[in-house]
């Protein structure tokens, strides 16, 4: 019975940690650590790299070797710095991830993560910073911050980039499966073409969905008014009631689109590039699409120094180029979104020219002029949020 022995040891180990946690929650809250993980964050180890970096990210959001399923950039990081990256793809949408971690954070407990990634067109990124649940970056460990593209340097939620750094940007548009439908290039088609009834999905992120519909309505998504909100909201609601819209999704539209359950989907540029299915096409809708940026944050209790060193590493243009474009010779697939790192394109050109020249991944100024960032005030409007949530969950 090796099992029972193992269990006993485990029980003992967890028991010690656990009883400490149960008996002194206040103390723990005071020092902002949690059990075994607090060792890594204690002040003595400040300028020393932790053995493990705990990194929560979205699904399909890093370079991957198709054969071994390993992540080459993370392996290289380990070789270079000796820190293993515990990479978990457990973020499916901002709201439910925030819901999952806010309980611990609001009590000053660590969530056991050193880096998490949240999106700027949802309210939770700014909420994390506003509530003081993000650690300040150790900029002395991030000299490569000089490679951050100009447009990303002073966002409203973090004007001096003290807490966050972009991971990737992306565009929201429409994808369709050409075995089931002709080209779907506009929101009107997506929401009102009866041939697509029950075969389309819309994103459950309010910023994404409303930006596209407002543009189609001729309204400005960067300055939302009650009138433009209602117009866009009602247009989507009508499509729900008529059963045109099959579901609201995070990135779970991808398998359904490939499988043929969906003919078209409001979707994110990089996901479609990653699917690698020649029948699935993506474009910025006729009236324009959405632009958003996912940002790395160090949640309270995370290891600031190790996380900062990692951020510095991914802001190295050579690393950013590999992560973005992959390397067909080594069977590595990249992220295929939009990197925020100056010089990534040059690095990518050497590895994978077709990706480096792809308008979706390294978009031209013209493409970028057609995509818009959703009004951040509207993102925090409780009335809008409740209305939206009720629409998508019932």
């Amino acid at each position, binding site marked *: 019975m090796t099992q029972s022995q193992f269990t006993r040891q485990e029980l003992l180990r967890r028991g010690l940690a656990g009883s400490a946690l149960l008996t002194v929650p206040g103390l723990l809250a005071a020092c902002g650590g949690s059990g075994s993980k607090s060792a890594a964050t204690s002040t003595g180890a400040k300028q020393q790299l932790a053995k493990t970096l705990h990194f929560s990210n979205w699904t399909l959001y890093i370079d991957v070797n198709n054969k071994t399923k390993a992540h080459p950039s993370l392996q290289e990081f380990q070789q270079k710095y000796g820190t293993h990256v515990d990479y978990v793809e457990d973020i499916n949408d901002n709201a439910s991830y925030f819901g999952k971690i806010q309980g611990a954070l609001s009590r000053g407990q660590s969530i056991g993560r050193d880096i998490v990634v949240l999106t700027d067109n949802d309210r939770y990124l700014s909420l994390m910073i506003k509530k003081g649940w993000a650690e300040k970056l150790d900029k002395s460990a991030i000299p490569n911050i000089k490679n951050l593209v100009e447009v990303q340097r002073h966002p409203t939620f973090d004007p001096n980039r003290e807490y966050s750094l972009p991971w990737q940007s992306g565009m929201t548009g429409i994808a369709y499966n050409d075995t089931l439908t002709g080209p779907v290039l506009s929101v009107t088609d997506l929401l009102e073409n009866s041939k697509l009834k029950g075969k389309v999905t819309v994103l459950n992120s309010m910023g994404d969905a409303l930006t596209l519909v407002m543009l189609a309505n001729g309204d400005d998504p960067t300055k939302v008014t009650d009138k433009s909100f209602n117009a866009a909201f009602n247009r989507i609601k009508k499509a729900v009631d008529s059963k045109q819209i099959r579901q609201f999704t995070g990135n779970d539209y*991808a398998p359904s689109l490939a499988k043929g359950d969906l003919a078209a989907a409001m979707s994110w540029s990089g996901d479609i590039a990653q699917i690698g299915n020649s029948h699935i096409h993506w474009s910025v809708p006729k009236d324009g699409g959405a632009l958003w940026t996912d940002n790395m944050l160090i949640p309270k209790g995370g290891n600031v120094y190790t996380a900062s060193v990692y951020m510095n590493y991914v802001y190295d243009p050579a690393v950013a180029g590999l992560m973005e474009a992959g390397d067909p010779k080594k069977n590595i697939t990249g992220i295929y979104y939009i990197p925020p790192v100056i010089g990534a394109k040059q690095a990518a050109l050497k590895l994978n020219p077709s990706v480096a020249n792809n308008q979706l991944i390294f978009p031209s100024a013209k493409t970028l002029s057609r995509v818009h960032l959703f009004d951040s005030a509207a993102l925090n409007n409780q009335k809008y949020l409740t209305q939206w949530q009720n629409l998508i969950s019932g």
Partner: protein
Amino acid sequence: MTTLAVPARARARGAANVWAFVRRHVLAFYAALFFLYLLLPIGVVIVFSFNQPVGKFNYTWHEFTFDNWRYWNGVPGIQSAITLSLEIAALASVIATALGTLIALALVRYGFRGRGVTNLLIFLPLSTPEIVMGASLLTLFLNLNFVFGFWTILIAHVMFCISFAVVSVKARLIGFDRHLEEAAMDLGANEWVTFQKVTLPLIAPAILAALLLCFAVSVDDFVVTYFNSGSEVTFPLFVWGAARIGAPPQVNVIGSAIFIIALTAMLLNVAVQTRRTKGAVTE
């Protein structure tokens, strides 16, 4: 109802026999269809664990391969998820069965005041929707500043397993003979010795059954865990996340493996029981 003594009559009536024959076979045919329906998804799960999908999504059959089984842990996160699930299930089933067996023994062996309340407290968790249990534990843990993770999952699993353990042990103790224990005590054995030498061997199969049931319920739990896991990921939670981007065939591999192992354990259990009852009859 067994007190109603009804003499068995062997009066055969032709028409009834024909009807019985038809009914018997219609039922058997229906039962076959029913089992087909019941087992179809399981078949799909197992078949697709041997699929070599084209591209990322394991939905259409492409090519037979053993690779998914060989590299069952090739998908990042799957191994730690299944390890956590097994740890939790092992601990939760042992603790819940211990607590549940004591309750079941007390209910079967003794008459005492408060039986009704006890039965109600055992039955309530069984009749509470999982989402309410998960949500209420979440509010408890939030309000008491618990750190979400291993311990909150374990507590939750022990909580909903106890009732299963009680009911399962109790069901097998109904025919339990108090006289054997009394005889042992008359012979001078104290309570503890009696328990060790007489009671425990008698109830061992019941305990084993409860352990298996709790283990199965714990490994499978999604809802309560989803509410109380913090950033830990059990296997069902892993499947939930993976489903959004197209679950890899390795998910089917683990699913099939759990199924096969559980089925084997249960088959053994059934075989042992059958032998036992046979033995009892021939004695």
